């Protein structure tokens, strides 16, 4: 009975959505702001990847909030999990092959992640994706070498400094050029080269570090629990 009732409710909701969707032709037009970004993005921000120019350029304030959310998740997770009693599990050691393989892969993963977030303004990718890859590298180590832990101080510092660089870069924008927050005050450079798009790559690098270390601390906390 309850399931039936639930289904009816959900169907009503979806019917409402379908009625609205009728107003939106599928796959036909670009939106108003989308058109503008595609047309002007590369000139205004200097980033070849328009998604990046939106994420770190036009809507970088969203990104600031997003970083904050991630930061919050790490902090909140820590706050919630601090008060548990630590249980000592005997974790079975991983096999030699896994162990060695992971150690071998780890620097490569980090290198790859660095590539992703440094080239965020040129190709698909960016700070978040790169950060996720960083974290996956650390996750490998955690899984393969029980007992190894990240350097918490270093992790915290990179977490904080990453965020601070973002805000400080934004705040510098208040004093130079057009005087608005998160203004792209550095020279745009030549399109499609590494040193282009002003502050975007710098922010993305900072974000890469920040996201990576935040995910690391999440993983670290979770691993401590298990």
């Amino acid at each position, binding site marked *: 009975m309850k399931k039936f009732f639930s289904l009816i409710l959900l169907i009503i909701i979806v019917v409402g959505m379908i009625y609205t969707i009728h107003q939106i032709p599928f796959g036909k037009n670009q939106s108003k702001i989308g058109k503008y*970004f595609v047309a002007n993005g590369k000139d205004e921000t200097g980033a070849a990847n328009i998604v990046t120019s939106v994420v770190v350029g036009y*809507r970088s304030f969203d990104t600031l909030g997003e970083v904050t959310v991630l930061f919050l998740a790490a902090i909140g997770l*820590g706050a919630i999990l601090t008060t548990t009693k630590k249980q000592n599990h005997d974790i079975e050691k991983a096999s030699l092959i896994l162990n060695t393989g992971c150690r071998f892969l780890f620097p490569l993963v980090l290198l790859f992640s660095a590539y992703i977030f440094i080239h965020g303004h040129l190709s698909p990718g960016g700070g978040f994706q790169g950060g996720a890859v960083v974290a996956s590298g650390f996750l490998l180590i955690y899984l393969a070498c029980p007992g190894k832990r990240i350097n918490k101080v270093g992790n*915290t510092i990179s977490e904080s400094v990453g965020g601070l660089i973002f805000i400080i870069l934004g705040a510098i924008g208040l004093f130079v050029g057009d005087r608005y927050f998160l203004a792209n005050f550095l020279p745009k450079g030549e399109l499609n080269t590494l040193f282009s798009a002003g502050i975007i790559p710098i922010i993305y690098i900072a974000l890469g570090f920040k996201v990576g270390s935040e995910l690391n601390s999440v993983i670290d906390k979770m691993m401590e629990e298990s």
Partner: protein
Amino acid sequence: MKEITYINPVLLIAVPLALAFIIPILKFVWEKSIKWIPVAGFLFDLIVSITLIPIVLQKNIIVKIGGTTTPFSINLVVGPAGLLLSIMISLAGFLVAIYALKYIQEGDKTKYHILFMLLLTGAIGVVLTGDIFNLFVFFEVLCISSYALVGYLGNRAGIESSIKYLIQGSIGSSLLLVGIGLIYGQYGTLNMADLAAQIKTADSISLFVPMFFMITGLGIEAAIFPLNSWLPDAHSSAPSSISAVLSGIAIEVGLYAMMRILFTIFAAESFMGFLLFLGVITLLIGEMSAFSQNNIKRMLAYSSIGQIGLIVFAFSIATASGLSGGFFQMISHTLNKALLFLATGFMIYRTGSMEISSFRGLGKKMPLTALFFTIGTFSIIGLPPFVGFASKFLIFKAALAKQELLFIILIAVIILTTVIEGAYFFRIIQTLYFKESDDKSSKQESAITALIPMFIFALLILILGIYPNWIMKFIHSAASELLNKMSYLRSVLG
């Protein structure tokens, strides 16, 4: 025209964020200073917000972020309404941060302070932003930090409430996101003013459906009647300083966001009649549920639901005076409920129990705390000369000015709820002062750092209760800004 120079309001958000990011480093360098960081941050916000008042009263400040062209980059719109909320948030944040200096003893204190700062920073972001997706992001900052803070103490109640809150809150934000998506798909823009310019008034189903989604999503945080089940659990299980902020700020920010969307984007006049009833029902349910509570924090939480209902009612009158009443009630509720929760926090701390019956004789043991609690109580019931009277007075006046039978009936219901409210609040006063306690231990006044913020709240309640005119000009312009869609459009789009 000469350009007015002002401090960029984006600092209201950026500075607390930067401070929050610094805190983890400070932990290694100078741990003692951490608890002062929120105090400093919100003091800064308070000062900046107040200095902005005269400028904002003349015209809205439009702050561009990440780009210069208006509908394409995010902007902050600092109007009187947003600034009013921002002042309230920073004031409450500042005082509650002082309170927390001594109050927070358990758990990971560093993380508490970070979460607390981000909670209120998210709130400031929500009230100042002029972009619906940005609103969603800051709303999430607010929500996620409150999920974490509700479970901060790590006790059974806290964890249980937190997870329930999280489930409901996440559904809310998903619904909000669907609403934003539906709007974006139709109009191809996310800027509120740009949307408002394209939507003259909500008339077709394709507008109503996203509106319903957004109302439901924001309504969960704003604790409107069927959506508020998380509130009593969360507010009663969080540490009291957080309950003060959640009750005093978070739900009002949710309500503000909802009203901003309803009035500015959709201009849904026809929907207001429904909200009128919803407000009164919320009020009724909240007060009735509070009536027979024995747990004081749960009672206060239910009372918050009631107050929110009253604010919704006031806003839904949809006249300038109704909106003024709503804003005034917001201010008064922030002051009252924050004061009540802060006082309750130390009373619980000293007695070790949340049962009202265990507060017997606290009027003698904690005279000042009990006095402040009494002031908050009187104010929330709406007795003169406290600020709650002024706000209820304005709401009644606005409702009666409509001169319709419907409003007289609704006001009769509101009177009934006030009577119920009086009944349970006066019961606590009697318990505090006129019942003998069992143990004869000596005075145990709250810590001085807790008394100072309580004193300031109580003072504000009294002063604003006697001289409400001092803020009326500001409130009027806030109300007319929220009500007048066209002036908002003109100020943003030029």
